[in-house]
């Protein structure tokens, strides 16, 4: 326990890891907030109107609801028609400029309202066509439809491993530590415990923080609705709610971070260089994601990329150029994660044996 506490103190306080984590988390959440802001094209008043209508008609699209929605559509169209009529009257000199400006100003007051209503009508039409439910998926879209790898968490995990273990190996302190009584039995285990537990913490924390941020900014309603209600997941066959899918995605990404941590640890032990272990871990994470973007093969390779992207595990059809491949089934998912767990265990055993062998030689 003392070794664990001392290693944690060395990492977080002495080597400034805590500061780095805070900095990268702020960066990460800012990017999410910017993404979210960019995805909402409506103005604040229009968005409030849109939300109000969504709240009123949320859920199954019934014939009765659709009738009411069509009435709203007719009313909105009527407003536009009246506006056009007034513009024409003004062009034909049937009304004075003052009269025209007064009436147009009145219409413009409704402009934000009609923008919000139009956005709502588009959601309702999509729900009607796809036989899904009416809901606001602005926030969920940002959280679930993101197919990029979270750079901040990747750098946090790689830095964690480097500052905790590789730095010591590179500077030679490691040999001194490993030749002590506690170093032999506890040190590597303590370091691995910190890598795994902090990866779990950062993975879950980032998922939760992003959830809270999006909820605070635009609200995350209808979390109990099925995943098929989110654009891009309409054809998904997995019977899962939106919230459960997000939680599972968080767990998958966390597993990906653990995998990344162990890969960095192994590379660092073999190459004894913080620069090269950072480079190769980074390349092994990003290159497969760039080369095999949207390809089913990515979800069967022993790289952290697929786990850190996450989205593809739930998408029904993965596009590969012009062709499409069936979604990754639950059994395939279970098989892959069991295999990856085995790979993690193997990497740990191999790197620990290599390291301890080096100490014995010393």
């Amino acid at each position, binding site marked *: 326990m003392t070794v664990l506490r001392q290693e944690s103190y060395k990492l977080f306080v002495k080597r400034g890891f805590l500061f780095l984590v805070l900095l990268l988390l702020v*960066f990460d959440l800012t990017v999410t907030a910017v993404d979210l802001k960019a995805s909402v094209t409506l103005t604040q008043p229009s968005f409030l109107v849109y939300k109000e209508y969504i709240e009123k008609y949320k859920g199954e699209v019934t014939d009765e609801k659709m009738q009411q929605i069509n009435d709203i559509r007719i009313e909105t169209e009527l407003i536009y028609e009246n506006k056009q009529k007034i513009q024409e009257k003004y062009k034909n000199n049937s009304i004075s400029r003052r009269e025209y400006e007064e009436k147009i100003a009145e219409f413009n007051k409704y402009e934000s309202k009609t923008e919000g209503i139009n956005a709502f009508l588009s959601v309702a039409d999509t729900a009607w066509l796809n036989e899904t439910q009416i809901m606001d998926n602005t926030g969920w879209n940002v959280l679930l439809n993101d197919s990029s790898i979270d750079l901040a968490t990747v750098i946090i995990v790689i*830095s964690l491993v480097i500052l905790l273990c590789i730095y010591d190996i590179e500077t030679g302190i490691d040999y001194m530590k490993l030749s002590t009584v506690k170093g032999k039995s506890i040190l590597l285990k303590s370091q691995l415990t910190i890598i795994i537990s902090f990866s779990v913490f950062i993975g879950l924390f980032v998922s939760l923080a992003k959830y809270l941020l999006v909820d605070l900014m635009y609200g995350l309603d209808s979390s109990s609705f099925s995943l098929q209600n989110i654009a891009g997941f309409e054809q998904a066959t997995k019977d899962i709610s939106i919230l459960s899918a997000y939680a599972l995605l968080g767990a998958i990404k966390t597993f990906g971070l653990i995998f990344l941590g162990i890969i960095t640890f192994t590379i660092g032990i073999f190459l004894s260089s913080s620069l090269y272990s*950072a480079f190769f871990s980074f390349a092994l994470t990003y290159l497969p994601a760039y*080369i095999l973007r949207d390809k089913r093969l990515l979800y069967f390779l022993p790289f952290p990329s697929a786990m850190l992207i996450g989205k593809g595990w739930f998408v029904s059809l993965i596009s590969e150029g012009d062709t499409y491949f069936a979604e990754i089934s639950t059994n395939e998912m279970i098989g892959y994660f069991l295999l990856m767990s085995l790979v993690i265990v193997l990497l740990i055993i191999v790197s620990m044996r290599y390291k301890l062998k080096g100490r014995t030689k010393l």
Partner: protein
Amino acid sequence: MKALISGELKKIFSKKIVIIVAGLLLLINVFNIYYSVVDSSDYWLLKEAEDKICSIAEGEITECKVKELVDYRDKMFNANENNEKIETILETPLSDYYIAERIVGKLTAIYNYASSIERLKEDVLIQKDILDSKNNPYLIRVNEKIENVYTQRQITSFYNTTGYEKFFSYNFSSFLIILVVILGVSTLFSGEKEAGMLQLNLSTVNGRIKLTAAKLIACAVFSVTMGLLFYISDYIVFSNITTMNGLNLPIYSLDSFSYSPVSLSIGAFVFFTTAIKIFGVVYIAIIAALFSSVLNRSYIVLAVSFVYVFGLMYITAYSAETMLYINLINPINLLTCTKMFETFNVVDIFKYPIFRYSISLITSSFFISLILLVVFVLNNKSSKKVIK
């Protein structure tokens, strides 16, 4: 000085791991190009058919050649309609018809290019009259520029240029070059600091300005070498697996560049854009060198450089227009410069429209000079400290 530069170059190029990584990434790049272009099992068959049909009309555009191509298309269409058995390049007349139809479409666009440009210029003249009355000097100048740029444009020949479109839109190699360059440059100054050599080096006679200059020159040479290696390999692979005829055609004969502000030949455009891309690579390498001179640990230099590059990529992808002025100094825009030449893209500089690529090149050069100056000042300060 020569000895210093060659010493620094040796340092970078003698790192086995950098050379291995460069080789591996080069291989990955070749495979990636191959698999992204050869995306179906009948790719070679389709390419051969396209080459054969294109050869009917290749060379100077004449009515006779156009007629021959149109006749071939109609012949295939009729054969398919009447279920006739005729000699075809692909398995069925319908497949031949689809390819011929596409080529006829391209040829028609090229044939009508001069008239479409004339229409554009007429629109500009009408606009100019309106703007003259509104007295907006900037927009008047923009219209004048459009008129000048698109004057005397015509395409007189037709060649199968399918490969160029793919070649110019391929940017993955730039990402790989960035990876290698950052790996190679990360240790430029910080590696010396880690080994405790920098203080020693800076305290020597040659250690102040000359050593810093040698390191920066070596960094630029390394980046240029990597850039050339990858971009030349891109060209070789693309020219082997796609059809890239008509190197002398003007760049605006390609679909995506029909309204390009430059009137270079395709061959000259390949050289020009490659040079800009390499300039972008050097720009990124100099930034990494700056990080290396500021930070003490190489892996931190690597991480910071990656965050910086990814941030720039993010800005390029999501806010190309909203962050226009930041994008003018963004090296990623230089690496993806072919995009800048697709349309008439000008920036308002004191009411004068200047081409975006010119501004990008000027501002980037200014920034590189500024970064170099900062690196020199930082190293000079450190050496003064050492001497004290």
